[in-house]
């Protein structure tokens, strides 16, 4: 009896010990956090006197496109340091589609997409009568990457046209040695193309990258527009020949291209740059072969800035109608502008915080020191328009 009593005491003691450890750990954790917050608060001696009104902590939740996630996190980091922790912003990469859906359901303060609000989402918004804005925040473009070891070793760069790319993915061009590809290359390089089948790699998951890429193919190839069309996912005719395959995410396509000789694929430019994959030149509308880079992407968007529709109009086919295959000898043909969307009639402190953050993104955030490697800032014309749209967020009076 006495023995069991003692063992009960030790047992209780042990339980208390475990509970205690958990409590101590969580207290220490929260103390550290508080210390961190107060540190950042004292470190910055109120850099913006006009933001005195936001003395309360504002917490913003956003989510969407995975492509812009690295750039978003970099912006958030710098912005939160600047404002001394009065505004906390949490952006999670859950994909363009989920970003839009969860924003529509009211779970997010702002959503982000590789393109813009989709047709169905737009109709839902119109029905509900809620006022919202869409604002482009960064430039994007799709790069064609390939794996031709001998060709690259010879110092050659692949040159392609929209029509040949469409024919490759349609399964009409089978081999690298096809005359339609060979004739595009520089004289010296023609001999280095292998007489092998082209392996066409594409995204298996729904993605804004696929939407942009297939929009471009629909624009330049009538047959593509009729047989395949465009969207977050499409049916790939080349797969039916056993010469094509899907991969998940930009990183999946990059990895598969890297691992498969004689393959071709498409990824967001930032990934191609980050992973140092060979990138093909594309022939633009004026007949020049161009690489995707800051100059050529910004040039294409500069030409399109004039036609940017109002912030509450339907933007879903924007790249198709306005951005792609633009005039100008330096314009790269496959470009887009990832955009964020938010409701207009928000509580004042939330609206103020969103306005302050995206205003910073569209001014300081576009400067080279705040742009992550592989990303491209908006051209001036587009940036000014975006800032105008953002003004709608500011509550009047």
């Amino acid at each position: 009896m006495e023995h069991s009593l003692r063992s009960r005491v030790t047992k209780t003691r042990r339980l208390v010990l475990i509970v205690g450890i958990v409590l101590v750990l969580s207290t220490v954790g929260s103390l550290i956090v508080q210390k961190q917050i107060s540190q950042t608060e004292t470190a910055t001696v109120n850099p913006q006197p006009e933001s005195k009104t936001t003395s309360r902590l504002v917490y913003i939740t956003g989510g969407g496109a995975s492509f812009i996630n690295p750039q978003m996190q970099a912006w958030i980091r710098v912005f939160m340091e600047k404002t001394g922790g009065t505004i906390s912003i949490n952006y999670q990469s859950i994909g363009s589609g989920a970003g839009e859906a969860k924003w529509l359901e009211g779970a997010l303060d702002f959503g982000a997409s590789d393109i813009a609000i989709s047709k169905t989402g737009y109709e839902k918004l119109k029905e509900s009568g809620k006022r919202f804005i869409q604002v482009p925040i960064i430039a994007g473009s799709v790069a064609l990457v390939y794996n031709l070891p001998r060709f690259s070793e010879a110092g050659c760069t692949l040159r392609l046209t929209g029509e040949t790319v469409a024919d490759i993915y349609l399964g009409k061009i089978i081999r690298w040695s096809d005359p339609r590809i060979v004739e595009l290359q520089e004289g010296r390089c023609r001999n280095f193309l292998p007489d092998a089948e082209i392996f066409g790699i594409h995204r298996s998951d729904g993605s804004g990258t696929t939407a942009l890429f297939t929009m471009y193919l629909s624009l330049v190839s009538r047959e593509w527009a009729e047989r395949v069309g465009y969207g977050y996912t499409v049916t790939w005719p080349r797969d039916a020949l056993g010469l094509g395959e899907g991969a998940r995410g930009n990183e999946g396509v990059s990895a598969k291209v890297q691992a498969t000789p004689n393959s071709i694929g498409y990824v967001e430019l930032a990934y191609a740059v980050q992973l140092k994959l060979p990138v093909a030149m594309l022939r633009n509308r004026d007949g020049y072969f161009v690489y995707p880079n800051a100059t050529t992407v910004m040039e294409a968007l500069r030409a399109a800035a004039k036609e940017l529709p109002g912030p509450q109009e339907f933007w879903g086919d924007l790249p198709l109608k306005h951005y792609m295959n633009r005039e100008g000898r330096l314009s790269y043909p496959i470009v887009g502008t990832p955009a964020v969307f938010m409701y207009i009639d928000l509580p004042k402190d939330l609206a103020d915080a969103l306005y302050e953050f995206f205003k910073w993104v569209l001014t300081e955030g576009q400067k080279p020191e705040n742009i992550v490697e592989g990303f491209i800032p908006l051209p001036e014309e587009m940036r000014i328009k975006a800032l105008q749209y953002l003004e709608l967020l500011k509550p009047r009076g």
Partner: protein
Amino acid sequence: MKPLMLRKIRSLTMLALISTAFALTLLPVLSLIGTVVYNGMSVVFRNFPGIFFDIPAAPGSSEVGGIGPHLLGTMLLVALAMAIGTPISILAAVFTAEAIKSWERNLGRLTRLLTHMMIEFPTIVVGLAVYGLMTTLAPYIRALIPGFRPFSLLSGVIALIMVSAPYMYAQVEDGLKSIPQHIREAVYSLGAGRVLTSYVLLRYLKSTVYAAISISLARMISETAALFFTAFGSNVYPPLDSNLLFRPVGSLTLAVYTLGLSGYENWVELSWAASFILLMLCLALFALSKVVIRGE
């Protein structure tokens, strides 16, 4: 002489076969631990102890930063989910196993059926269900709590409870069922009431209960899918005010997933560090549970 040789050969062959099978079973576990330790430990020590407190560094920079918000998020999620889930599942198990009256038995049977069904649910479905529930309820909850969001610590805690409580329930219930009837009768015959009897029986089972607790703790720590649309994840510290429960929090598992897929070298490294910390937490829990059980 001959049969002896034969027996020796047979014995040796069997020994070889069993050793190979043993090695094959152990290999994946060892290689998993090895890979995570190899890739993760150096990163942890590159920014020590900052890795536990800092937020992730900018992508593409030479620094790694830390996973402070994710560690804090996991701690908050698991602590709250354990605090709420453990009593619920243990009490439910006692109710089911110690039911006497016929309505109690029927209710118990229903509970068991539903709980066993819940064990089979994919955790991503649990997460989506909680998200759906929270979105539907959000307008009403917001009338009471203005800052409420479906993506929140609260949703994450509910999802974690729904994922791990059925396991704890099943284990404790099985344990109670396995207690021989005469022991139960012995307790009752000493004049103990039902509550006291249940308490005595639970103490009789303490190692099962401890094992159930530590297993569900490990399950909660390593849960990913159920947290996607509930806790949502966060790369920044949530402000520690009265709205903490109603804001998104990060988690180590979500950090492993999103940072690992990013394609930026320093973020991928950070993802390895997060996996390492996660693995160490789980191994420590495992060890702790062994010590506690042996101590009895």
